[in-house]
């Protein structure tokens, strides 16, 4: 192994391999837009991208730009690294956020610009696009209280 190879491995997290059906998402991210596949027949957002709408069966789907506003559904602080990119970056957070456009419409991400103790389930966040590797931009989220009403999934507290 050469030093160059090692450096490359440490400088990027796992790199998305887009397919014909997911390319729009990463293209959007590179141009600073969060786009989600939406059924043109019944208006249901289908994420992860699939060739048909699981609500109505239509194959007429198209990417649409969404607001990028979301609510933290759950999160964790990874303390042990399982990939060399994260070896010197622990503890780092992994969060699942729910986009405000639709109950249950979620993305895995990292919350940035947030003091560790402030990260909470139910927190309101906004998408931000950050370069994390030599050729990789990811959609991350930062705290952005906007007085958004909480979504259905976050109202299930008993």
């Amino acid at each position, binding site marked *: *192994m050469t030093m160059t*190879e*090692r450096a*490359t*491995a440490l400088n*990027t*997290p*796992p*790199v*998305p*391999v*887009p397919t014909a059906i*997911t390319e729009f998402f*990463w293209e959007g991210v590179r141009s600073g837009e969060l786009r989600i596949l939406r059924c043109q027949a019944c208006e249901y957002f289908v*994420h*992860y991208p699939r060739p048909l709408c699981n609500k109505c069966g239509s194959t007429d789907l198209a990417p649409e730009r969404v607001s990028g506003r979301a609510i933290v*559904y*759950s*999160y*964790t*602080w*990874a*303390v*042990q*690294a*399982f*990939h*060399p*990119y*994260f*070896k010197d*970056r622990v*503890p*780092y957070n*992994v969060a*699942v956020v729910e986009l405000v456009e639709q109950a*249950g419409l*979620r*993305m*895995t*991400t*990292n919350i940035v610009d947030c003091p560790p103790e402030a990260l*909470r*389930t*139910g927190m309101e966040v906004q998408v931000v696009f950050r370069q*994390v*590797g030599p050729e*990789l931009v*990811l959609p*991350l989220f930062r705290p952005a209280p906007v007085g958004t009403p909480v979504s259905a*999934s976050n109202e*299930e*507290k*008993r």
Partner: protein
Amino acid sequence: MKGNDRVAAVGVGYSTTGRRTGLTSWQLAIQAATAALADAGMTAKDLDGVALLWGVAGPAPEGLDVVDPQDLGYMLGVEELNWYGTAGPSYIGPALQAVAAIKAGFCHTVLTLRIINQAVSAKDRMAGLTEPTPAAGDSQFTAPFGSVSPVQSVAALPARRHMDLFGTTEAQFGAHVVAQRHHASMNDDAIFRDPLTVDDYLAARYISTPVRVLDCDYPVDSASAVIFTSGERARNWQKKPVYVDSAAYSSVKYMTFENLDDFTQSSPFHAGRELWKRTDLRPEDVDCAQLYDGFTIIVFQWLEALGFCGLGESGPFVEAGHTRLGGRIPVNTDGGACNVGRRHGANFCIEAIRQLRGECGDRQVPGAEVAVWANATGPFSGAMLMTAS
């Protein structure tokens, strides 16, 4: 086609179990199969089916020997198999396939196995990653953000959600870890047998918050085997048969834990509802529950999913001592995979059978007649209810 009304488990066995045993997958499989045949008092000639799942946790290193059910039948000396199968999840896959095939009448006696060859540690695997790693398929939406281990997607994210929705505490997770270690202290086969306290638990290191190292099953090389047979053949063998009362398999959505619709009510809840629809027994009839503990949160999910406590109530339920031997529903009486080593569910089937045979010595649940065991979680899982008569 003529099927079979009942299915019984008549033989159980384990291979040598441990870290870096140096044994091949084939050696592990043959050891467990031989032990189960000996336990039943049968020879391979009495089998007409094999169902197994072979695997490693993580990608298999090149050259690692793979055990296939057709080959295994042949190698054991079964010249013609009436049934062979290989499907997950974990061990509940092969077990439910065997039960279904016997019920349908495709075969009468099936050897089932879960074989795990833990050839490479997580640390070694990480050291071997020297080039950018591709995140293909749905993992392109998870791995780039560092969700790269089941400890995050299967355990930490659902555990945090459970805590924030229901008020579950880390000390309550600890109460379970302490209780099942107490059970392990009465099991000669357990790898970890020293008692723990909740303070010991809270002092253990985090892997990914709120999941600690003591919440994770212990990776080992192991093979586990159970022989299922038709009701009419159940009494031909030397051990008291244990019967399958009902069983349920579940798949919800698709195989990405991070994108499940509900982190606190995934496939175990579906499997639980179906299990109770298929029997006249009720949760209060169950004498012990053997619930998959790949991670502690999964035990909590199954306690709720099977109706031993209400949704969100597993934390206080465990903390009150209801899952300890002598409690309302003793859970993981062998010590669980955190203490006996990773068997991906098979140890729970074997412990259920041993409890119903009355073979468990100090950890025996007195007069146990009904046991449930459950395996996997999230997008896929299953459960089986077994009875002593």
